[in-house]
């Protein structure tokens, strides 16, 4: 879709046109889903996040100041939802790891996974910290510039550079360990 045409659709969606918003859903569903999938690595959860992100966007699109900031704004919504989802997952995982017995089993299986399984790039991505995964997802999968990532995440440009650099180094390291 051409930029001017897209801005027109966003303006109409802001005025409350449901058909304009549906056009935006069709245009950006892949973009939102890819980000969610890279962050949570689970199809069902990624679809939940996609759905929730668009519903949130639908209710708050009137607050969007500038049409050209729509993609960054939508990405920020997805980013926050992924963060919440991962925090929730971590809490659940921590609960499950309460008993020492379970901890032992997990340690064993993770050792087995590390030594025998060759990790795919998608699996390797899940082993990065949330911040690093987020930065590399926005850069390499979504194609945002460093400046745009800094705006979306509300962090300094220098932090974006170092997060992306470290994420790549870590990812390379994880993949090479899997190959050994």
């Amino acid at each position: 879709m051409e930029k001017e045409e897209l801005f027109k659709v966003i303006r109409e969606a802001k005025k409350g046109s449901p058909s304009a918003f549906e056009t935006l859903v069709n245009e950006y569903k892949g973009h939102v889903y890819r980000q969610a999938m890279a962050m949570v690595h689970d199809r069902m959860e990624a679809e939940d996040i996609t759905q929730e992100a668009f519903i949130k966007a639908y209710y708050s699109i009137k607050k969007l100041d500038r049409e050209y900031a729509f993609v960054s704004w939508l990405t920020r919504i997805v980013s926050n939802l992924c963060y919440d989802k991962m925090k929730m997952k971590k809490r659940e995982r921590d609960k499950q790891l309460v008993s020492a017995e379970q901890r032992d089993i997990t340690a064993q299986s993770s050792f087995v996974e590390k030594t025998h399984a060759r990790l795919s790039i998608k699996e390797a991505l899940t082993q990065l910290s949330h911040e690093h995964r987020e930065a590399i997802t926005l850069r390499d999968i979504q194609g945002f510039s460093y400046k745009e990532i800094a705006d979306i995440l509300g962090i300094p440009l220098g932090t974006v550079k170092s997060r992306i650099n470290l994420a790549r180094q870590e990812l390379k390291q994880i993949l090479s360990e899997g190959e050994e």
Partner: protein
Amino acid sequence: MMAEHVFGLLSEYIDDELSIDEKKKVDRHLQECITCKLEYDNLRELQDQLFLNFKYEEPSDTVVQHIHRHIAADQRERVVIKGFILVVLMGLFLSSALFVPFLSAFQTLGHIILVFMYIGRSVVHSLFTVLAGNVYISGSVIIAAILIILIMIPILKYLISSTSIEARRSTS
């Protein structure tokens, strides 16, 4: 003599985020240094692999259908709320307009009764005086309330049935 390795700049280099001078420096270095060139190739491949692995990821059609259904349900809800407000306002307006002839009828009736029921004059007169004083407000409210209730019954029925349909759809 070969310059120092440029590992620290390679990540920004592949993203085209370096200044012109830094970019030239890395360009020159990559032509001479095999180690950095290898690292550059690895980073480039990693970037391409990441992009390609997610490039064709798309949500299922049901996700989009859910979003569209949610928007449609919200639009229906808005129409119902707008209709409800309109009905209340119209009810108030109509009841106020209708009350004018009713008020004069009450007064006429009151006078006739006063003529024929002289004995109870003071009682009836006082009663109609009170009615004439307050009936404008109380009558309007009663008529409006009856109208609203009559109109709201089918709207509520519709809302309840559509909500239960939505609930059944989302659980199925």
